[in-house]
């Protein structure tokens, strides 16, 4: 409105105002002379006169407490130290804050925190004396300076601080419409102040937006540094909880779990509160909700729950900016376990800087397990790479385990960590391992993965002795590690000694737990499994005296629980495994054995019948028909040993038929292909024994070709190597007999080099040494014969 217009309105209005109200309208109409806008303006003002209530009272009646609030406050005008109190600028649980002036000098303003009478004044004063040098020495542009402190003549403690004319950081950011980046930069200045104080061994203990004022020129200043410590009550620590007086000094929204629990305060406490302030700045909401507001609820919420990621509560377009880095940074600072937070305010600020610079931040999101799981699903094929990435992904986990262990005081937090690690180990052990187990070339990856899992579980077991479920996972992990190291029937690394140790550990755990809880089916199964696994490792060393009891015990346990595991396919396979091994070492001529052919045949037949039943019940299952083929093969071995060559050949041929059917359905499975190679070799052996040499040679060739392919797909695999070597040896033996010296020599040499590699891996294996010696002798003989020729 122009001054000219105002004058016009004013003139007409005031003239009309002098008239009786009945005449006003006519006057205004005339005076405005067709200026409709002017007339509307004046008329609307005249209408407002009728509002007689408006401004009828004095302003003071609108805010009766404005003066009454300080009515009882005789401190206004009071002199404290060198200062005179002017007015109250804040009120808190401990007392009030006043604006004060240095007596007689209006320009020298200060804030005085005057504590309530009765607040442990002697303790505060003596603590203040101890700390005033440090507190007064805090000289930082973002810290409000402590000027002096003491007690008033009536015994009330007070502190005089630099007066900061500003508004709380969150209000400032909102009012100034600061964007996320500007908020972060503002916050970094706060971090710098906190870091400075920490360097000077001062912890703030009560960082909150109300204590971070931003001046008109946009400079944040931290108030009350170190004051909270001076004010702490002398209640013994263990009784200080939320419900205790000590907590009232805190601001629950920004208080750390350790403060709520009355646990020791460290610089990590300030890091937590900084995180909470950052949360507020970014999300525009408090990190925690206390619907009922009761102290117990607050304690529970603060100590047990992680705030929702800021991006999830902020809403709007800002959410997108917060998702990812900033969520992670805030939640890292606000970890329940102090050790999980940023190590310092500086680190927090540095990660913010990285984010601002577009660099990767150092904090890691807490969803390792989820990510690992996703990774496995996406990368099943690129196994080795996947394993390496996974393990490096989990690199932080060793630290996590350590933290989980040391944080016993932080039980809940530790438990969560514990479960994360455990879940990760579990997914390594089962999901990931199983996903790659049948892929060619996967052996080193499996080893890496399983070992990692074991490492985690071992650490966990050290702190959770009484956790039965964990013990079970641990036992299973040991068995799997043993399998990968040197187990039978699966690709392995040929590390028999390591495998034996792993299996024996599993056996130790299972034995102890099964003894403690004899009714537990799980433990019986694991115990049986551990028994035959140990047997499988010992038996090839010819130490049958030690191996056989393990097999018998395994079979005995399975027989005892058989009715309870009929529906459990995995348990059925384990039972088959136990019978198979028992058969192998009882009387299979292909193994070091006790010479009990009948017992061996019976064991194999038992295993075969179980496989057949499973195959019938689960037509999609490939392992059971393969098992039937395997058992045919082994029954053939025993029957051959009994001298029944014709029946042996038939058994072998039916084995090849059964396994070929499985290979057709699952051509990439190396184990099945290996088995086909073995069965084919056995058919060759039977032909050889029955004098059908050419048929035998054809089968041997076919067998070693199959096995070479299997080995080539996974060159690290000791079992494939061994098996291929043996097929070469069989083939060479017959070639030698038929006079094909060159063919025999070539195959012996190849077999020897393979066996020597295996011997290097497992130097103690006597039969291997003997086998190598046999081959060396054969080579020597052939070479000599060649030379003589």
């Amino acid at each position: 409105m122009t001054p000219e217009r105002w004058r016009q309105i004013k003139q007409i209005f005031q003239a009309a105002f002098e008239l009786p109200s009945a005449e006003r309208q006519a006057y205004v109409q005339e005076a405005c002379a067709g200026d409709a806008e002017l007339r509307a303006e004046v008329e609307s003002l005249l209408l407002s006169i009728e509002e007689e209530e408006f401004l009828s009272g004095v302003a003071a009646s609108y805010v009766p407490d404005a003066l009454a609030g300080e009515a009882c406050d005789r401190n206004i005008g009071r002199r404290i130290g060198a200062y005179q109190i002017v007015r109250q600028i804040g009120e808190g649980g401990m007392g009030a804050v006043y604006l004060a002036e240095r007596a007689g000098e209006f320009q020298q303003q200060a804030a005085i925190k005057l504590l309530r009478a009765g607040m442990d004044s002697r303790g505060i004063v003596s603590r203040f004396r101890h700390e005033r040098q440090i507190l007064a020495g805090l000289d930082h542009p973002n810290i409000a300076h402590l000027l002096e402190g003491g007690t008033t003549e009536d015994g009330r403690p007070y502190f005089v601080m630099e007066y900061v004319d500003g508004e709380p950081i969150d209000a400032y950011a909102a009012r100034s419409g600061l964007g996320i980046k500007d908020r972060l930069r503002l916050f970094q200045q706060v971090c710098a102040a906190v870091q400075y104080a920490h360097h000077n061994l001062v912890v703030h203990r009560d960082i909150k937006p109300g204590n971070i004022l931003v001046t008109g020129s946009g400079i944040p200043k931290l108030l009350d540094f170190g004051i909270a410590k001076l004010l702490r009550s002398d209640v013994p620590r263990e009784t200080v909880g939320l419900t205790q007086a000590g907590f009232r000094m805190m601001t629950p929204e920004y208080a750390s779990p350790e403060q709520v629990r009355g646990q020791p305060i460290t610089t990590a406490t300030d890091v937590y509160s900084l995180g909470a302030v950052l949360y507020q700045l970014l999300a525009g909401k408090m990190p925690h909700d206390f619907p009922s507001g009761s102290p117990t609820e607050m304690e529970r919420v603060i100590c047990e729950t992680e705030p929702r990621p800021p991006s999830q509560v902020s809403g709007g377009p800002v959410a997108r900016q917060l998702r990812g880095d900033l969520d992670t940074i805030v939640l890292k600072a606000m970890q329940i376990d102090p050790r999980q937070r940023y190590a310092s305010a500086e680190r927090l600020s540095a990660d913010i800087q990285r984010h601002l610079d577009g660099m990767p931040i150092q904090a890691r999101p807490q969803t390792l397990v989820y990510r690992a799981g996703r990774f496995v699903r996406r990368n099943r094929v690129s196994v080795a790479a996947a394993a390496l990435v996974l393990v490096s992904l989990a690199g932080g986990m060793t630290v996590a385990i350590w933290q989980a262990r040391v944080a016993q005081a932080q039980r809940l937090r530790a438990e969560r960590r514990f479960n994360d690690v455990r879940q990760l180990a579990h997914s390594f052990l089962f999901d990931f391992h199983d996903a790659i187990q049948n892929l060619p070339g996967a052996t080193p990856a499996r080893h890496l993965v399983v070992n990692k899992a074991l490492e985690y579980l071992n650490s966990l077991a050290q702190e959770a002795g009484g956790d039965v479920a964990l013990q079970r996972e641990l036992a299973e992990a040991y068995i799997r590690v043993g399998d990968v190291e040197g187990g039978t029937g699966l690709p392995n690394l040929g590390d028999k000694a390591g495998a034996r140790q792993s299996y024996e550990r599993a056996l130790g755990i299972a034995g102890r737990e099964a003894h403690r809880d004899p009714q537990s089916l799980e433990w019986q199964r694991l115990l049986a499994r551990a028994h035959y696994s140990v047997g499988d490792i010992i038996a090839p060393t010819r130490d049958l005296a030690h191996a056989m009891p393990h097999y018998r015990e395994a079979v005995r346990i399975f027989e005892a629980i058989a009715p309870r595991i009929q529906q459990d396919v995995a348990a059925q396979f384990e039972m088959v495994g136990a019978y198979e091994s028992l058969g192998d070492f009882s009387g299979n001529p292909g193994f070091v054995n006790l010479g009990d052919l009948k017992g061996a045949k019976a064991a194999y037949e038992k295993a075969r019948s179980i496989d057949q039943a499973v195959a019938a019940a689960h037509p999609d299952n490939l392992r059971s028909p393969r098992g039937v083929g395997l058992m045919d093969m082994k029954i053939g071995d025993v029957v051959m040993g009994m001298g029944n060559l014709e029946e042996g050949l038939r058994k072998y041929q039916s084995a090849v038929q059964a396994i070929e059917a499985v290979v057709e359905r699952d051509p990439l499975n190396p184990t099945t292909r290996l088995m086909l190679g073995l069965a084919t070799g056995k058919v060759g052996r039977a032909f050889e024994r029955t004098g059908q040499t050419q048929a035998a040679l054809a089968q041997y060739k076919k067998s070693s070709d199959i096995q070479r392919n299997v080995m080539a797909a996974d060159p690290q695999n000791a079992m494939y190597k061994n098996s291929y070597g043996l097929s070469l040896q069989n083939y060479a033996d017959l070639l030698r007999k038929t006079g094909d010296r060159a063919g025999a020599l070539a195959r012996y040499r190849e077999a020897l080099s393979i066996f020597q590699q295996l011997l290097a891996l497992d130097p103690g294996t006597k039969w291997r040494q003997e086998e190598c010696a046999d081959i060396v002798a054969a080579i020597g003989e052939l070479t000599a014969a060649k030379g003589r020729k």
Partner: protein
Amino acid sequence: MDPHPSPAGKVTELLLELSGGNRAVVDELIPFLYRELKRIAAAQLLNERPGHTLQVTALVHEAYLKLVDQSQVHWQNRAHFFGVAAQVMRRILLDYAKGRARAKRGGDLRRTSFDEALTVSYDRAYELVEIDEALQRLEALDQRQAKVVEMRFFGGLSVEETAEALGVSEPTVKREWAMARAWLHREISPA
């Protein structure tokens, strides 16, 4: 010369300067009045029954008696004093009302510690803040009208005292008051 004159001596001195036409001394007067008014209010209320209405006029008068050496001043000086006092009252009330209004709107209360929580009594702080904001707009249009509102509404001065302080006639004060009141009302009414 006493380098640290008593508040009364200093206020009287400043008041005389103000009456002599030096408007700049108002800024110096304000802190004295701020303190004194609050102190008097506190003392008044201590002796009153709860639930009484604060007599702002009496408050200002008492401050005048306490802060000004009566032997040195004329009635015009008193009017000037009242003018500054009204300005100070406005500041006192707004300082309080702004904090109050913010607390009510922003839910600021939850942020503070437990035992200071929620001694909220019904007040019209927000309304007062609105009036003040509208009054600032009026100041830009018509300084005298705004002054009338400050003195009458915030300072609790009578028409006569307001006329004295502004050096205008009583009818003028009435006319200005009427229009200012109408204008402010229209300003803060929802459109």
